[in-house]
C-alpha cells in the first residue's frame, strides 16, 4: 500500500469509529467563498489559505478547515442536538523549508448540543483519547472562557475591555495592550504627541484645520475616537493587584486538578471568573467520569490562543515531539452566533490528522 493509501485507510478507520459513536456523516465543498473566511479570520488567512478566482462566484478558497462550513450547514438546516463526522482534505500554505504538508486529510467530529456543554466537552476529548490510544500522545487542555471572563470582570472602562477581548487570539498584541492599561508600559511617545495635538482644539476644529475631508470614515466617528483617546488618557491604570491576577492567569500551567484549586483560590479576588471556574470544575468532573486522570492532565490557561479557530471555551490538543499536533479542538460558541445570523447554539469539536496517526503507527 502506498503512503497515501495507508493514510486514507487510517482516515477511514477513524471516520468509521466516529460514525459508530453516533455521528452523522457530513460533506462540505472544497471551494469555500473567501469572503466568509476573510471576515472571520482577517487578511492573515491569505498567508495560510490558497485563494483562487472564480469568474462568477468571485474569490474562493481551497477549504482551509471544516469547522466553518460544517457550522454553516448545521445553522442552515440541522436538527438539534447534532453530532457530525467528516473526512477530507484541507489545504494550508506552509513556510518555505518547514517540511510540513500543504494538503492533508482531516477527520473531524463536531457536537451541537444545548443541554450540557461540559459533558459534551468531555465527550469529544474522551472520544479522541480513545481513538488515539496507544500512540503515547501528550494531551494539553486549556480554557479561553476563563481568560475572557477575567477580562470582562476587570475594573476598567468598557473600551479597554473590548480592546483586550478583540485581541485575545493575538497574544503579543494582547500583552502590549494589557501592559499599557496596567501602567506597566509607559505611554508611547507617539500617543503623547497625539494627545498634545488633540488638546489644541475641539475635534471638529482640528478636523477642519487638517484639510479637505476625504474618505468614508465620518467626522463623527473621528471625533468620537478622539474624545475617547483623551478620556482614556485620564483613566486610571488597572489596579496592580487585579492586573497581577490577570498576568498570573495568562501564564498558569498546572495539572488540571491543581489549576482548579488555584483558580478557586483567586476567585474571591476576581469574582467575575466564578461562573467560568464553575464550568471548568464541571468539565473536570465530566472528564473524570470518563476515566480521565485530571490530577495528571496538563492545563495551560493560554492554550489555543494562537489557533486558527475562534475558540472561546475548552480547548485541547494531543502532541508528540517533532510533529504538529496530531489532534486538536475546542469549544466555539461565539462562532455559531456569527455564522448563524442571529441563531446560536453551543458547539464543540475537533480534528485528527490521519497522516500523523499512520506515521506513528508505522503505516506511512
Amino acid at each position, binding site marked *: 500500500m502506498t503512503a497515501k493509501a495507508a493514510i486514507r485507510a487510517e482516515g477511514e478507520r477513524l471516520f468509521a469509529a466516529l460514525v459508530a459513536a453516533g455521528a452523522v456523516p457530513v460533506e462540505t465543498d472544497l471551494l469555500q467563498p473567501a469572503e466568509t473566511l476573510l471576515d472571520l479570520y482577517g487578511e492573515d488567512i491569505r498567508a495560510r489559505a490558497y485563494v483562487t478566482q472564480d469568474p462568477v462566484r468571485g474569490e474562493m478558497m481551497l477549504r482551509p478547515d471544516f469547522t466553518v462550513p460544517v457550522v454553516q450547514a448545521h445553522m442552515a438546516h440541522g436538527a438539534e442536538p447534532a453530532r457530525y463526522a467528516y473526512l477530507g482534505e484541507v489545504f494550508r500554505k506552509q513556510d518555505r523549508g518547514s517540511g510540513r504538508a500543504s494538503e492533508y486529510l482531516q477527520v473531524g467530529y463536531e457536537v451541537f448540543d444545548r443541554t450540557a456543554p461540559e459533558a459534551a466537552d468531555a465527550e469529544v476529548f474522551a472520544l479522541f483519547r480513545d481513538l488515539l490510544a496507544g500512540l503515547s500522545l501528550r494531551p494539553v487542555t486549556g480554557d479561553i472562557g476563563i481568560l475572557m471572563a477575567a477580562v470582562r470582570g476587570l475594573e476598567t472602562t468598557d473600551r479597554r475591555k473590548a480592546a483586550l477581548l478583540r485581541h485575545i487570539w493575538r497574544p503579543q498584541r494582547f500583552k502590549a495592550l494589557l501592559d499599557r492599561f496596567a501602567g506597566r508600559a509607559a505611554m508611547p511617545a507617539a500617543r503623547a504627541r497625539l494627545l498634545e495635538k488633540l488638546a489644541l482644539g475641539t475635534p471638529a476644529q482640528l478636523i477642519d484645520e487638517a484639510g479637505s475631508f476625504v*474618505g468614508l470614515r465620518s467626522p463623527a466617528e473621528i471625533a468620537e475616537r478622539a474624545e475617547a483617546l483623551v478620556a482614556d488618557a485620564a483613566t486610571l491604570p488597572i489596579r496592580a493587584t487585579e492586573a497581577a491576577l490577570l498576568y498570573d492567569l495568562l501564564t498558569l500551567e498546572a495539572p488540571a486538578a491543581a489549576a482548579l484549586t488555584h483558580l478557586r483560590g483567586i476567585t474571591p479576588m476576581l469574582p467575575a471568573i466564578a461562573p467560568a471556574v464553575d464550568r471548568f470544575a464541571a468539565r473536570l468532573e465530566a472528564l473524570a467520569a470518563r476515566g480521565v486522570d485530571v490530577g495528571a492532565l496538563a492545563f495551560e490557561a493560554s492554550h489555543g490562543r494562537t489557533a486558527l479557530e475562534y475558540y472561546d471555551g475548552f480547548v485541547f490538543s494531543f502532541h508528540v515531539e517533532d510533529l504538529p499536533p496530531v489532534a486538536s479542538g475546542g469549544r466555539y460558541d461565539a462562532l455559531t452566533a456569527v455564522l448563524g445570523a442571529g441563531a446560536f447554539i453551543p458547539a464543540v469539536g475537533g480534528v485528527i490528522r490521519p497522516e500523523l496517526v499512520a506515521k506513528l503507527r508505522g503505516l506511512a
Partner: protein
Amino acid sequence: MIKIGVPSKGRLMQDCFDWFGTRGVTMRRVGADREYSGVIEGIDGVGLVLLSAGEIPRELAAGRIHLGVTGSDLVHEQLGSQAPEVVELARLGFGQADLIIAVPAVWIDVETVDDLDAAAAGFRAAHGHRLRIATKYHRLVRDFLQAQGVADYQLVDSLGATEGTVKNGTAEAIADITSSGETLRANHLRILSDGLIHSSEAVLWQSRLAPLTPGDREAVTRLAAALGVALA
C-alpha cells in the same frame, strides 16, 4: 555567456546605466526607440537583457538571468523577504522610495499603526465591512500588519493612482511607494508616524539558480571585480 537583466526604461534604466558606466561597464540601448534590446561593453562574456523592473525578480528566481538590477521592494514583495533564490550583491544608491501606510489627514485620532488598528475596529462596527487599504504590495503590507497584530482591515488591489482611492471612496487608507510625499499631500493623505513598511532602493541581485559553466563563473568574477562588489 551570463545574462544581466536591467530595467528597460525610465529613470531607473538611466541611473542603472550611469552606475555601471562609472565603473567602466557601458550599457546602451540599441535599435529603434521602442525596441528593447541593448549591448554591454567593457566586459567579456556578459549579455544585457532589458526587462520590466517588475519582471526581474521572477526571472532571477527562475534562473533565466544570472544577475539583475531592480528595487528591493519588488523582490521582497514577489519572492519574500528571505528569498533563497537570490542574493543581494550591492545596494546601488538610487531608486530610493519608501513603502508607507497613509490615512486621510483629517483622521486627527490616528497617528500610528496602533491607532489604525483601533480605528479599523470602530470602522467595521459602524460600516459593516472591514477597513479597506488599497495597495499593490499585498505581501509586504500583510506581513507588516500581521506582525503588529492589526485586525479588521482588508487589502484591496490597486495597480495605479492608489493615492486617489480614498477620495474616490474605494478605500479608507493606502499603502504605496512614495519618494517625496507630494502626491500624498495633494490627495489629502498623511503617513502614519510608524507606517514605514519598507525602505526600497535599487539593488544588484545574483540568482542562486541560474546555471553557470566554468566560463560563466569567470565572467561573474570579472564583472564583480570591475564593479567592486563582493560575491556571496
